[in-house]
């Protein structure tokens, strides 16, 4: 979230699209209700299903899943055509006036530089025109045909209200009503907040779905504002933290990158990451990349990371492909190229697409280790559970370990929520049986590996035996010791910004004190400030909220730098005066920036310096057009899902997203709309949390068994009544479930033809208190988003028919 949960109360308009907050984030959704009750806010819900969020909306607009880009591009076109723009914001705070260099082009759905063989782009033309002074060239009038504004207009031209209706199945009148309501927030006094979740991300063009709304919000001047912003409602309690700390193939904590193999030494790596300003006087904060990187290396390898050895650059692995994400990991396993998997608190057998492929992949590995507080299906992929897990254990030669771990009530530490708050929690009970914490298990793995490498040697032992491990009890580092490392500390005396000397061995106050000369260590620069010499900032519990801004600045710690609303400099006009007095966050008082939040700006940089509010960007402004930063294009473009019930009417030659990675076997596993005519999607219920709550008795009683949701028209066509058993199948598998026939799903008329939506909640498996059932992953295709490799769980094809119950349910059916 750029903003925070409480801030939703300031919104004048809330748009929920690509999510269902009322059911998936109920206590956060309370703030939407608060805005409606006390701020006269209105709520728009755009969703294929009439969800419980829709049931309290002022306007509900149906949409076919996988067509969000066409819809939102239509909204952006409406705003430009009707001059509903925040003009000063647009000219001062965005790249609308920047010129795109010659050679960049877009035609028939493809950007310049496409290679069909590689399914990838040569992005060299996707950049600004650079002037002789080394800066990007701008045309303040935005009239130049190669200005981003004119390029945007051209790109959006095709998305007329009529086209939106043909593609999305959203009635033109409802779509236009949505546009009118959104357009009202172009006033500097009014803001719209965008709330979204996996309904946007789980598509082959998920990142571009989000980009589309970013364009709308930027045209309206709603970024950086109270009650505005782009608000990703993350799925899990600490998925934000896991991402921040970089537990991904290609990341170093704080969104730094693991090097690629074409960056053989530190000089070549850092040369690509100088991030010099692209306009005069811009901060371009990533210029400090080297400080964060060197401090990270010192945190990992201490005295073994020196200037002479390139800060132990060789200790880091180098990538030969963009990422070894889960999807690639299990593709390699299926090919017999993986030896083992160590899985912490994760149930991939049910959470990654194509269950059949996952089972095959697991069965080919030599060993699988599962660390979990619950008995997961993954740990029992080899165990026969009748038709729910129809495997023959005698044919599976995998060694499997199930290690019992503690859960939240049995440990202390911090979790980062969607608002970027690091909140500390404490232990309330002893763990059952012989459970150990994940910390203790990982420590044992490291210490035993280290001992073996010291004793026997082996492949490149250096990064293992030299890993910094100075915890009081080596086998059981404490959460506080680890939090202190994440925050960072001095290794030698340093000077702070005011010239004071900070001695060695002190916690730093924040990332501004980090150095590139080895005198500081810091595990995760964006978390710097979480555990300082003042103590554990994450454990703060002062909920006072000056000015009733919904900020509570002394509750826990928010990254970065305890800032609660990102880009808050943009809440003021170029002179430093808030666009709206009612929505004041910060302001320039003649000497410095002051207000309710930590300024996202140089604290004493005066407005007349012309420094832009988007201080991380080299441009200093927000990007309507993203240069070569996205793999699939600088503007969002409508492509159909890889399995779609209709043809692409916008760009008939192109089916799925042209730059999405898809493995050969998975491509062959795609079905067609002739065989599988219905548009399926997965979703969550309010009574369950993924596969976890099926282990909890009350939740199992509330929602005991799997079902499939279909509309009345399709049910009638197929002769299916409420409560009947149905078979749902795709090219990849077949499952059974009870039918729930509702008015919540209605056929969408796309290009004159009805499209029926089939909804599948995703909470059942073969272990736990609920009845046994199937997860939609038995049916879903293996293709990921172009930029993030998030699987396309929200738009795929199935067929459906009435059937008989599964064997274990025959008597009760």
């Amino acid at each position, binding site marked *: 979230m750029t903003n925070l949960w409480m801030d939703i109360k300031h919104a004048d308009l809330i748009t929920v699209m690509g999510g269902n907050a009322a059911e998936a984030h109920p206590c956060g959704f309370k703030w939407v209700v608060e805005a409606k009750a006390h701020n006269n806010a209105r709520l728009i819900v755009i969703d294929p299903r009439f969800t419980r969020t829709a049931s309290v909306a002022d306007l509900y607009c149906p949409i076919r899943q996988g067509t969000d880009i066409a819809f939102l591009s239509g909204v952006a076109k409406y705003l430009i055509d009707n001059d509903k723009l925040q003009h000063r914001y647009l000219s001062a705070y965005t790249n609308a006036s920047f010129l795109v260099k010659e050679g960049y082009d877009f035609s028939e759905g493809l950007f310049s530089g496409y290679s069909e063989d590689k399914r990838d782009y040569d992005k060299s033309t996707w950049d600004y025109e650079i002037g002789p002074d080394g800066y990007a060239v701008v045309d303040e009038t935005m009239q130049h045909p190669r200005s981003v504004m004119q390029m945007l207009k051209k790109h959006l031209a095709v998305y007329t209200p009529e086209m939106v209706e043909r593609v999305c199945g959203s009635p033109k009148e409802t779509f236009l009503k949505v546009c009118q309501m959104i357009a009202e927030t172009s006033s500097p006094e009014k803001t719209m907040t965008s709330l979204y979740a996996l309904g946007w991300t789980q598509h082959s063009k998920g990142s571009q779905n989000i980009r589309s709304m970013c364009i709308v919000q930027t045209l309206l001047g709603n970024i950086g504002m109270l009650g505005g912003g782009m608000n990703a409602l993350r799925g899990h309690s600490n998925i934000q933290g896991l991402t921040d*700390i970089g537990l991904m193939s290609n990341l170093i904590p704080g969104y730094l990158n693991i090097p690629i193999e074409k960056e053989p030494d530190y000089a070549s790596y850092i040369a690509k990451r100088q991030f010099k300003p692209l306009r005069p006087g811009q901060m371009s904060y990533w210029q400090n990349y080297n400080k964060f990187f060197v401090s990270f290396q010192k945190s*990992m390898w201490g005295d073994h990371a020196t200037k002479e050895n390139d800060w132990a650059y060789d200790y880091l692995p180098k990538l030969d492909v963009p990422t070894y994400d*889960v999807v690639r990991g299990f593709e390699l396993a299926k090919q017999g190229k993986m030896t083992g998997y160590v899985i912490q608190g994760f149930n991939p057998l049910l959470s990654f697409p194509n269950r059949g492929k996952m089972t095959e992949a697991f069965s080919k590995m030599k060993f699988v*280790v599962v660390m979990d507080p619950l008995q997961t299906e993954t740990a029992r992929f080899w165990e026969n559970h009748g038709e729910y897990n129809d495997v023959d254990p005698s044919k599976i030669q995998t060694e499997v370990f199930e290690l019992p771990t503690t859960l939240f009530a049995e440990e202390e530490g*911090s979790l980062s929520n969607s608002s970027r708050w690091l909140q500390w929690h404490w232990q309330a009970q002893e763990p059952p049986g012989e459970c150990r914490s994940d910390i203790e298990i990982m420590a044992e793995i490291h210490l*035993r590996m280290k001992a073996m490498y010291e004793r026997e040697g082996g492949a490149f032992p250096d*990064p293992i035996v030299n890993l910094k491990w100075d915890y009081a009890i080596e086998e059981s580092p404490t959460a506080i010791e680890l939090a202190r490392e994440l925050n960072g500390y001095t290794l030698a005396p340093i000077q702070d910004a005011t010239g004071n000397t900070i001695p060695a061995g002190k916690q730093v106050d924040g990332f501004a004190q980090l150095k590139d000369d080895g005198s500081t260590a810091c595990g995760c620069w964006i978390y710097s400030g979480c555990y300082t010499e003042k103590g554990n900032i994450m454990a703060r519990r002062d909920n006072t909220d000056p000015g009733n801004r919904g900020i509570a600045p002394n509750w826990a710690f928010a990254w970065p730098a305890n800032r609660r609303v990102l880009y808050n400099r943009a809440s003021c006009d170029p002179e430093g005066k808030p666009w709206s007095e009612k929505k004041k966050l910060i302001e320039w008082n003649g000497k410095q920036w002051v207000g309710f939040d930590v300024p996202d700006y140089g604290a004493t940089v005066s407005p007349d310096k012309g420094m832009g509010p988007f201080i991380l960007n080299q441009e200093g402004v927000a990007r309507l057009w993203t240069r070569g930063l996205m793999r699939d294009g600088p503007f969002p473009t409508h492509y159909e899902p890889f399995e779609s019930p209709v043809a692409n009417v916008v760009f008939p030659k192109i089916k799925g997203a042209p730059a999405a990675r898809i493995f050969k076997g998975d491509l062959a596993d795609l079905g067609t709309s002739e065989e599988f005519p219905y548009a399926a999607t997965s979703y969550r219920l309010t009574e369950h949390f993924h596969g976890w709550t099926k282990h909890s008795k009350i939740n199992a009683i509330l929602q005991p068994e799997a079902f499939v949701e279909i509309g009345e028209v399709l049910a009638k066509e197929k002769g299916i009544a409420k409560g009947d058993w149905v078979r749902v199948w795709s090219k990849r598998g077949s499952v059974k479930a009870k039918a729930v026939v509702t008015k919540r799903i209605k056929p969408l008329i796309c290009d004159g033809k009805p499209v029926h939506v089939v909804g599948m909640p995703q909470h059942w498996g073969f272990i736990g208190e609920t009845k046994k059932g199937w997860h939609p992953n038995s049916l879903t295709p293996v293709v990921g988003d172009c930029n993030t490799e998030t699987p396309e769980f929200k738009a795929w094809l199935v067929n459906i028919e009435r059937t008989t119950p599964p064997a274990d349910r025959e008597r009760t059916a």
Partner: protein
Amino acid sequence: MNVQVSRRGLLKGIGVGLAGGTLGALGFGDLQPAAAAAVRPFKLAQMRETRNTCPYCSVSCGVILYSLGDRSKNAKSAVMHVEGDPDHPVNRGTLCPKGSSLLDFVRSETRTKYPMYRAPGTAEFKRVSWDFALDRITKLLKEDRDKNFVAKNGDLTVNRWTTTGFLGASATTNETAWLTYKTVRSMGALVFDNQARV
């Protein structure tokens, strides 16, 4: 900074004060000791309160865990009740259908309790010791790493290990995540991911 704010003392005080005060005001002063003895003590007042966070979605509602046993030596504590934390600025005491039933999650019958091992081709898990499990796991890891570690690709130093994968957990703490990162990355592992995608 780490002070646990306890409301137990406060609740006790309020309970006694109300009982005494109300009865006293009604003119039954003499009955006070007997009446106070008849008032059933508020069960939660006997319990230890611990501030925690709901482990499910990213709203991360504040919860108060009530447990019996003061965690002194030989007094094993167990959570008995869960409530929303009224001081928490986001949930302000509320919990959803998932958070309200956290007690059943903590006490789930299908929790793992002992290290289990399934040998190749067999049809059941067998209980093993932690030492057996950790020795065997690290032996398997080292064997694979030593066999498949790639130090060079031509002239380029690449130092990568891509034949064993690691997955992080979205409900573990940041501190756990950091220790996991250190352990996994120091081995040169690249097949490394978490739930951010699902």
